[in-house]
């Protein structure tokens, strides 16, 4: 089966999955006690039953469950995720405005974690008794044990208070003026601390994984064949061995994507990064259900897309993986 056909099949599965996620989200939120009407009434300082009923009717909450579900689902197909009463903006607009910041944080921290983690793993596997091996062990213990918000606060104390090198939070400095390049540089400057914070857990994971995987591959017969051909050690490591060792790292990276997004929620809160995470936090506190569901929809979309990308990457790395 050609790669294109596999990708199309995967996208098809992804769409079905997305639909299921939507129904499940909607059902869960409907079952939960209390609704927007209660929140609005609460904000108004209390309201009688008549007013609450009126609010319910305005948001269509008086209709039967299936009718509500149908309205919601048909809205999705025209990219209408409902209206946030709290932010007074359509949810789609709200989420799309915040999505790029989260994607930037999540993708950059994953790239950092995968590249650095794999490199550390390779170097550690090459010399099992070396210093770097001890560093990887220590780093992974630390990365697994330290909660991200704690790492984040620690980095803020170190690099903002003690050594004022980096900005404390946010995504850009309003006083910075200039063209696209200068603006981009400013965003990058703000990105460093949250990116490192979010990457820390995964760096630990990937470096251990890459080390174990590399150690196994370096003992393989084909590595000996490569050496017997006269391939220089660097090429043996990075071409012959690494490509075989990458499989587990890619698989786990794909599986971890959902947890990276939930990690981003915390990191965004610590660094006041204007992404989906801060939006999620605000809308949960405000019981703004349309926004919460909108965020869930987009984050599941992101997870599904990245799973498809993982699948494609695995196939590109290892020709033995066939259609299935």
């Amino acid at each position, binding site marked *: 089966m050609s790669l294109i056909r596999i990708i199309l099949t995967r996208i098809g599965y992804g769409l079905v999955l997305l639909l299921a996620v939507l129904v499940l989200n909607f059902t869960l939120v409907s079952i939960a006690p209390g609704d927007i009407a209660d929140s609005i009434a609460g904000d108004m300082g209390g309201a009688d039953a008549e007013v609450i009923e009126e609010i319910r009717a305005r948001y269509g909450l008086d209709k039967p469950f299936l009718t509500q579900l149908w309205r919601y689902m048909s809205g999705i197909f025209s990219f209408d995720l409902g209206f946030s009463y709290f932010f007074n903006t359509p949810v789609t607009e709200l989420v799309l405005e915040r999505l790029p910041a989260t994607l930037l944080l999540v993708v950059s921290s994953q790239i950092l974690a995968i590249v650095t983690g794999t490199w550390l793993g390779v170097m550690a596997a090459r010399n099992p008794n070396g210093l770097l091996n001890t560093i990887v062990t220590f780093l992974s213990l630390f990365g697994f044990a330290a909660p991200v918000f704690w790492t984040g606060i620690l980095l803020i104390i170190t690099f903002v208070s003690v050594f004022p090198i980096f900005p404390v939070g946010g995504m850009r400095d309003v006083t910075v003026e200039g063209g696209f390049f200068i603006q981009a540089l400013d965003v990058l400057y703000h990105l460093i601390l949250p990116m490192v914070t979010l990457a820390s857990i995964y760096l630990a994971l990937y470096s251990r994984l890459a080390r174990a995987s590399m150690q196994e591959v370096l003992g*393989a*017969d*084909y590595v*000996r*064949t*490569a*050496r*017997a*051909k*006269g*391939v*220089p*050690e660097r090429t043996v490591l990075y071409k*012959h061995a690494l*490509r*075989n060792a990458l499989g587990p790292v890619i698989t786990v990276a794909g599986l971890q994507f959902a947890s990276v997004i939930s990690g981003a929620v915390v990191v965004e809160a610590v660094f006041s990064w204007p992404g989906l995470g801060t939006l999620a936090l605000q809308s949960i506190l405000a019981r703004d259900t349309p926004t919460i569901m909108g965020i869930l929809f987009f984050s599941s979309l992101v997870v599904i897309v990245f799973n498809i990308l993982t699948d494609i990457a695995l196939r590109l*790395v*290892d*020709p*033995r993986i066939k259609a299935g």
Partner: protein
Amino acid sequence: MSAPLLSVDDLVVDFSTRAGNARVLDHVSLEVTSGEVLGIVGESGCGKSMTALSIMGLVPNPPGKVTSGSIRLEGRELVGLSEAELCEVRGRDIGMIFQEPMSSLNPVFTVGEQIAESVRLHENASPKAAMARAVEMLRAVEIPEPELRAKAYPHQLSGGMRQRVMIAIALACRPRVLIADEPTTALDATVQAQIFDLLQDLQTETGTAIILITHDMGAIAELADRVAVMYAGRVVEKGTVETVLSNPQHPYTKGLITCVPHLEPEPPMLREPLPEIPGVVPALTDLGKGCAFAPRCLERIAQCDDSKPPLKATTGPHLTACWVAGQ
């Protein structure tokens, strides 16, 4: 005998293990001349493969290291060469085939790429020229539809095909020495015969010297010109195939030869049971001062426990390391 192409002299390789120092090669001396096939036989763990790895400069270090001795290729000393210099020798001057064709090829590259890689490395060939050579090599090792097979991945080929690819890799740069480390152990009998035929044909064509490591006495009889018998890291008998196989001097060699099964016409109940050499190869960490084979030897005398017998001439160029032999 002309000047040896490759000579191994008094090679000593030690491995440091938890149980102490293991001398895996103990003063091994071998030589092979151009166009000759040297067979190395012996049980598992007697140092055959380690001899091959030492010649390639691939002794895993740590824990292993070449303690003393020399390996010369056309007079050039290989022991002590830098890693970069060794990389140039490997694949270009000395090629090697391993015993596990199923796992010796990299699963993520096409076989064509894997053959072309050494051509690119050693001959500075362009990718296109290297690939053309790869196809040519696949044809030389008698793989049907070589253009098509070059694009195949190892998992799409059978065991025999993969071993042919391994041979193609090893011979791609026309090395002067080919080391074949039990090239047919993992293959079934008909394929074994094909691979040996192929090796023989290629050898007559190219004049490459072959070091054939095996425990298949039949293959030795058929292919080799000279044979070295190894036991516990030492060469215990060495000579031409005819003299060693027809007139073995060392009790270990005699044992190995009687262990070869024959097709016998008698019905099964009348047959003699297949003889075996009692005991196992000793641990290399405590070999003691006597002959390593003494505990298993049927002809041992008192002297065998006291000192190691030197490798000395018994008849002509036929050398044996045994106190009893030739007396």
